[in-house]
């Protein structure tokens, strides 16, 4: 079996303020549909900021039951997909998330232990009991690349 993990999203850098010493008020911007010239420049000087990056596995929506936050955890170990699978020290590449052909997602370590423990030539998916086959690599569409800004002035 050759489990291809889904591609991890590249870190998102939320800070959009790299070259500006001042920024426009978002409230004004949205209200000024008639005339872009009414944008007000705020007299703020940015002395320092911290860029904040965040990554996720992009699993949401691929699990069938995406109606609550349960799809944010690996249902086998009940830990977050972004957390560590059992026996793994670090999250991320050491604790990858894999999909079956049936589209159900688990930590690689969690589903592997289950597949082995079944002692069967046709091990099954923990969720739907279909015969387990690793799904193909997924390309995740970055649906909210324009994330919220996070600034520390």
């Amino acid at each position, binding site marked *: 079996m050759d489990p291809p993990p889904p591609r991890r999203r590249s870190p998102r850098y939320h800070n959009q303020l790299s070259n500006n010493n001042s920024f426009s008020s978002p409230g004004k911007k949205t209200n000024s549909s008639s005339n872009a010239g009414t944008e007000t420049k705020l007299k703020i000087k940015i002395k320092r900021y911290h860029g904040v990056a965040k990554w996720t596995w992009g699993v949401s929506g691929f699990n069938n039951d995406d109606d609550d936050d349960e799809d944010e955890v690996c249902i086998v*170990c*009940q*830990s977050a997909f972004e957390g560590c699978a*059992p026996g793994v020290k670090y999250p991320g590449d050491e604790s990858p998330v894999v999909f079956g052909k049936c589209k159900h997602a688990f930590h690689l370590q969690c589903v592997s232990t289950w597949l082995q*423990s079944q002692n069967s030539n046709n091990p099954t998916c923990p*969720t739907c*009991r279909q015969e387990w086959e690793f799904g193909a690599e997924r390309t995740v569409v970055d649906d909210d690349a324009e994330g919220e800004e996070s600034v520390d002035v």
Partner: protein
Amino acid sequence: MSTSARRRLLRDFRRLQNDPPSGVTGAPMDTNIMLWQAVIFGPDDTPWEGGTFKLVLEFTEDYPNKAPSVRFLTKMFHPNIYNDGQICLDILQNQWSPIYDISAILTSIQSLLCDPNPASPANSEASRLYNENRREYNRRVREIVEQSWVEDES
């Protein structure tokens, strides 16, 4: 000592407390998180109503990849429950899946009370009465319910 089974059991415990299913309750023993005691309340509007049935669940380090062993401590009268309290339930045997947690196990056992599976009898008398003489079966169940209230004192 921290293992994946223990870590998972702690998560089960937290989930059981934050989102308690109706009619069942459970907690690990003080000294051993691998050993749990649970109570299943007989569902309302059934012959089981009012009963408080105690169980013990024993987990191994293979949990959640292996089902726990589950046994009633309270004396039962049910087609799928052996005299020693062992339960004949598919999800505790060949239909086990690691997606089940303690909540799911207890809820499944609770629903088994009113929906016996005639295909796998564990108590032949209960099974026969359930099929042939429901009135007598229900009377025997009511007896078990009443016994469940006093068992502790005996």
